């Protein structure tokens, strides 16, 4: 009897133990063999993973021709990139070079997994001076050598459908947040499933970015100067409500948008004529065009700002968005990796790649190229240089994105199913997010 209980208990133990504890297993990648191969993880910048491969492959071939180093490419979707990096950091089974979201710079720097860029490393990639000042602002924590360099520049803007605006008799894009809400209401016909605006309500990264910029407009910060979280500041509650309100009180966003996990779902609403506007980063243009809209069908404007600004409010309508490149410190081919970073950030490649991905160059020499003087890109460029603020460069940043972003996703879910969260509900959600983050730090 006792023996049976014991053996069943053992089986039960085994069954129970196997799932959660083994969840951080390693992946199948191995470091490149010797000096002639590099393993490179690219983030998903194009319209699909395959599209990224198509764009990068000829450039990698060029690099191999120049240096004799073969690059093994893997494109990783955004929803698993951070986890894959963590797994690689833990297991040591990592690529040599990789792309990271520039907002994660300080968080990933804290793991110690990436090669710090001191004078020698900067020289190896062509000098620190070649990079734009704004882009360098999001490469690592202040006072420490950065562990990444900029690769692609991004900023937020408001995309609008010229046809839907014309049909509604609206001639200019909204200039203030109040205008935006008024226009969006005018464009919304819920019965016909046509909406003024759309969002990616189930994307934690998108949610967190808007929490940051609208919090700033309402005079709040998510971290104080000492790096302590201040999520429940009343300005942050107002900022969240400004964004969530598009669905809950203004009712200009379809409840379906609460189920959109990626920006591509949101852009599909826009190109499919279901929504007249969305707030997205400049690389959205590539997806809009590949969905069949032409450049004449849509316009871009800076995301409207609250006017007048609440006290302490800042004119911020984007974070300094972008993609950085890092080198794993344990790479057995650091020199080759740095050569590759130099190649990818060279003016020629910057022009080619940023044009194809619809992003902005991060090196001055490429930035002035004629290809980036289009009307729309000029708007993104001016947002980036004038009204964009960097997300806090602190180790907790990635946790801010996940905890706040997921709390907002939950709020969107509640709104979609019929409840309108009040300020106290939003504050409670932020309080929960802050506690979860504090528990993890």
């Amino acid at each position, binding site marked *: 009897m006792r023996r049976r209980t014991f053996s069943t208990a053992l089986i*039960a133990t085994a069954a129970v133990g196997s799932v959660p504890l083994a969840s951080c297993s390693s992946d199948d990648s191995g470091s490149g063999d010797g000096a002639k191969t590099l393993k490179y993880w690219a983030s998903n910048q194009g319209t699909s993973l395959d599209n990224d491969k198509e764009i990068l492959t000829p450039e990698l071939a060029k690099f191999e021709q120049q240096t004799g180093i073969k690059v093994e490419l893997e494109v990783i979707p955004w929803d698993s990139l951070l986890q894959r990096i963590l797994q690689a950091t833990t297991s040591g089974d990592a690529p040599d070079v990789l792309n990271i979201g520039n907002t994660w710079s300080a968080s990933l720097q804290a793991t110690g997994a990436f090669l710090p860029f001191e004078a020698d490393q900067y020289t190896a990639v062509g000098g620190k001076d070649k990079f734009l000042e704004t882009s360098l602002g999001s490469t690592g924590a202040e006072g420490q050598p950065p562990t990444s360099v900029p690769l692609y520049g991004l900023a937020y803007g408001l995309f609008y459908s010229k046809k839907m605006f014309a049909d509604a008799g609206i001639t200019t894009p909204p200039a203030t947040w109040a205008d935006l809400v008024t226009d969006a209401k005018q464009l919304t016909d819920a019965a016909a499933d046509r909406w003024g605006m759309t969002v990616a309500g189930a994307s934690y990264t998108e949610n967190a970015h808007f929490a940051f910029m609208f919090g700033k407009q309402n005079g709040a910060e998510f971290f104080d100067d000492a790096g302590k979280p201040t999520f429940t500041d009343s300005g942050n509650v107002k900022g969240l409500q400004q964004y969530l309100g598009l669905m809950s009180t203004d009712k200009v966003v379809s409840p379906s948008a609460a189920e959109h996990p990626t920006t591509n779902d949101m852009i599909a609403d826009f190109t499919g004529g279901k929504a007249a506007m969305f707030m997205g980063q400049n690389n959205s243009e590539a997806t809009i065009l590949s969905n069949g809209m032409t450049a004449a069908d849509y316009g871009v404007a800076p995301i409207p700002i609250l006017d007048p600004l609440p006290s302490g409010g800042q004119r911020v309508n984007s974070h300094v968005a972008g993609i950085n490149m890092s080198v794993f410190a344990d790479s057995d081919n650091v020199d080759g990796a740095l050569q590759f970073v130099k190649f990818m950030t060279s003016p020629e490649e910057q022009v080619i790649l940023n044009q194809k991905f619809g992003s902005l160059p991060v090196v001055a020499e490429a930035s002035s190229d004629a290809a980036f003087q289009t009307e729309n890109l000029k708007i993104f460029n001016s947002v980036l240089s004038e009204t964009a603020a960097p997300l806090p460069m602190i180790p907790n940043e990635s946790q801010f994105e996940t905890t706040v972003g*997921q709390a907002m996703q939950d709020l969107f879910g509640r709104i979609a199913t019929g409840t309108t969260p009040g300020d106290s509900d939003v504050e409670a959600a932020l309080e929960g997010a802050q506690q979860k983050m504090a528990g993890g730090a």
Partner: protein
Amino acid sequence: MATSTSPRTGRAQTPRPARRAPRSHLAPGWLPYVLLAPALLFELLVHIIPMVTGIFISTLELTQFYVRRWLDAPSAGVGNFKIALDFDGAIGASLLRSFGITFAFTICTLALSWALGMFAAVLLQRPFRGRNVLRTLFLVPYALPVYAGVIVWKFMLGRDNGMVNALLSGLGITDGSTFWLLGNNAFVSTVVVAVWRLWPFAFLTLMAGLQSVPGEVYEAAAVDGAGMWQQFRSFTLPMLRPVNQVLLLVLFLWSFNDFNVPYILFGQSVPASADLISIHVYQASFITWNFGVGSAMSVLLLLVLLVITAVYLPLSSRRMRDA
């Protein structure tokens, strides 16, 4: 070989083969262990070592600062458990809530899977035309790869283009704008998909169990005038008791630990109503990068299930003996 298999006769006739005798006595002694060794080794590798590692990690302050050299992470003692069990804090409170949801989910899934499995097994007990086709058909959800099956459910449950909404609005039952994967409906959807996945296993096990119930018993009962329901209650259920004892435990543990269904159904964005414990632990670890607290949660889950198993087995065995 022939002489060594008859050592006793050998020993009786001549003293010489006696030297061989110890070897033949030895064989039964070590052979079972050698045969078991590979299984034990893999059990150690696949289950015991990861589990012990997990328990060890639960005592570490394993945050983003130490993931690279995790053996250097400072000891947290029971600190991680304190965080996980502080039910006034956000982490502890949500863990407790997740446990509650998981219990409710497990009971619903278990009851429905068992009832469906039992119904189908009894229905298919007697031979009729097409019985084998039905049996095969019923096993399809169990035979399909989890991902393939559940991703189809995800598409069907989508709000705008999902088949479920199209069907319900076509029949005039709803207006077709129900969110099945958000809010409280997400719980119902998870249970339905989990039952769909699990009930063929209950069906298979019970069908096998029913093979051992002798047909004469039913014939005799039918002669005595017992109806279907009476036969089921008086013969089928008691005779399936040993099968049920194991089946219910396995169904319970599998449902309680279900990771695949919620993960494939919701991905990164699990609604609060479907926040099952295994996915909660996974998310807790990866959201805050605190693998120590995540592991502490895993260990707590392990303890809870061990206690339940330890209470369930003697209790159900006693009932079986009493019967």
